[in-house]
């Protein structure tokens, strides 16, 4: 009970401690601990099989697991029914039932969800090519996601979980998806957790990032701290040994004798003497930290 109280007080939407989940003989979550505050957009990023989806399924109460987990102050294993009034998720593209019509989907969600705003949903639908009689099986993947997003955005949930929501969509739909989410949905009372492999496309909308590897969180940080902590240096052959002495966490060669190095916690002024510095992209950082995952 105390845990619940402190959880609410600190405004944590998700707090996980020592999560464990084994599939047959492989650990998908290995003593995983993390903390997500309200009003954030958190990217959960990791290589294939790192435990991203398992972590999300644990948060959504879809699987049994060991450890302490509170989502909005509730245990998803025992209080899932109450929890789902406050939480919504898009598990993947194309999970809408194929027989359903647009009209039926709206009617159904309006009928059962106390926080669903029908007018809002219809407004979102009006901006698309969807019409009420269309069945899911007649839609393209992009249209299915548009429908799903319209349904979900009309639900006033406190936590939205997105697991690879744009997988298999073309760039137009992907851009539109995140744009929509930011403009018409997100506010300081809501929290979004998103996993994706298209890191570059979401890094500008994230407020926080978590890297997961082999069932463990290897990095968790607000995006602005990432920029402070990590520096990318573009250096020439002349300064390369000097730069290497500062122990870059990653290094890759460019044409014409230039080298790009990634530093963790080295002051930027110090690096600036050795070449050009800039903020690393999330994708480069990811590659550097996940080095050797598949080795």
């Amino acid at each position: 009970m105390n845990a619940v109280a402190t959880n609410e007080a600190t405004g944590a939407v998700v707090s996980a401690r020592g999560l464990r989940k084994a599939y047959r003989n492989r650990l998908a979550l290995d003593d995983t601990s993390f903390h997500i505050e309200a009003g954030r957009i958190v990217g959960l990023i990791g290589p294939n099989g790192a435990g991203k989806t398992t972590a999300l399924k644990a948060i959504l109460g879809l699987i049994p697991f060991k450890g302490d987990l509170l989502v909005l102050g509730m245990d998803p294993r025992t209080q899932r029914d109450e929890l789902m009034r406050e939480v919504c998720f898009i598990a993947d593209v194309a999970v809408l039932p194929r027989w359903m019509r647009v009209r039926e989907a709206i009617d159904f969600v309006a009928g059962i969800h106390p926080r669903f705003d029908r007018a809002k949903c219809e407004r979102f639908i009006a901006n698309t090519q969807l019409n009420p009689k269309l069945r899911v099986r007649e839609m393209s993947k992009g249209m299915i996601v548009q429908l799903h997003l319209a349904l979900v955005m009309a639900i006033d949930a406190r936590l939205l979980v997105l697991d690879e929501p744009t997988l298999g969509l073309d760039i137009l739909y992907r851009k539109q998806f995140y744009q929509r989410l930011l403009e018409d949905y997100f506010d300081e009372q809501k929290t979004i957790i998103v996993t994706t492999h298209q890191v570059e496309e979401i890094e500008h909308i994230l407020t926080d990032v978590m890297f997961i590897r082999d069932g463990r969180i290897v990095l968790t940080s607000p995006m602005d701290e990432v920029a402070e902590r990590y520096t990318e240096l573009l250096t020439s052959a002349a300064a390369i040994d000097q730069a290497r002495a500062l122990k870059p966490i990653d290094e890759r060669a460019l044409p014409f004798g230039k080298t790009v190095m990634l530093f963790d916690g080295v002051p930027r002024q110090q690096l600036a003497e050795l070449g050009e510095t800039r903020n690393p992209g999330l994708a480069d950082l990811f590659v550097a930290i996940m080095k050797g995952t598949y080795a």
Partner: protein
Amino acid sequence: MNAVTTTHQHKTNTFKWLLKREFWENRGGFLWAPLITGAIISLLTAVLAVIGVARFRNSGVASDLQFNGGLAEHARQIGGIGDTALLTGISLTFLVLAFVVFFYALGCLYDDRRDRSVLFWKSLPVSDLQMVLSKATWALLLAPVVALAAGLLIGAVLWLIVGMAAAAAGMPSASAIFTHSNPLSVVGNALTMIPAYLLWALPAVGWLMLCSAWARTKPFLWAVLIPVLSCVMVSMAGILPGTSIDYGKVWYTLVYRGLFSVLPGSWAPVSSAFQDNAQRAENADIQGPADIMNLMNISNLDVLGSPDLWIGAAIGAAFIALAVYLRRWRELAD
């Protein structure tokens, strides 16, 4: 926190919408299957009636068709034709119902795990208990009610066809088909099928839904092979000396009650009214349709007194409880 709770909220009636949802998804089985069967049978009957009328008129035997025992008895027997038509319609849709319920129960907790749409349903505030109960309600109560309504409609159409054909063929006092029939008695007795079916089919529907919630693949094979192979193994164990097993009971319990109870009327073996009628049928002097109806048109309520029905219902309820648990924790099917 406050800001969230003050936003838009409205009342919901989850179970009603879950039932609607099942109907949207399974309209084909619940509504169209009995109606289309009825339409085909009605059409065939109409064609046969036309051919029959033409032949009768030419041969002139229709006027010879008289039931013994005077005019009143003749009218009574003719009236039985109407009741027979009505009962035929109901029997047809109830036969279709057996197949519809069997495959519905077998697929209802499996199909959405296979196409992953279960993840959509689980993203909404619907408990697994409500979800499973809404499906059981359709299989055990609403599908039979729809089948009964469709059966009555088809029965009425058949009745009309037969009545008109009889009149056209020149059958004496053919109008008795309408005036001397007992539709209310037929409908009343058919209504007793509903509670009897709900409880009698519960073990079979429960078993099928359990397999549906449990199977990772091929629920049909699991649902059928487990009871059948168990019985075969028990029967083979009987080859060993010194064993005395009542095989009939084993097959009855596992296969008949576990699978075939989805067929409406399959409770006949435990129905005392049915047994009595079977006795009477052997001795009875059956003169015409009305006498047949006397044996066929019976209430089904007496099976509600049989322990077989109640034990089966309790086991079926336990199966459904297990299915709810599996629905909660079982992952996707592949």
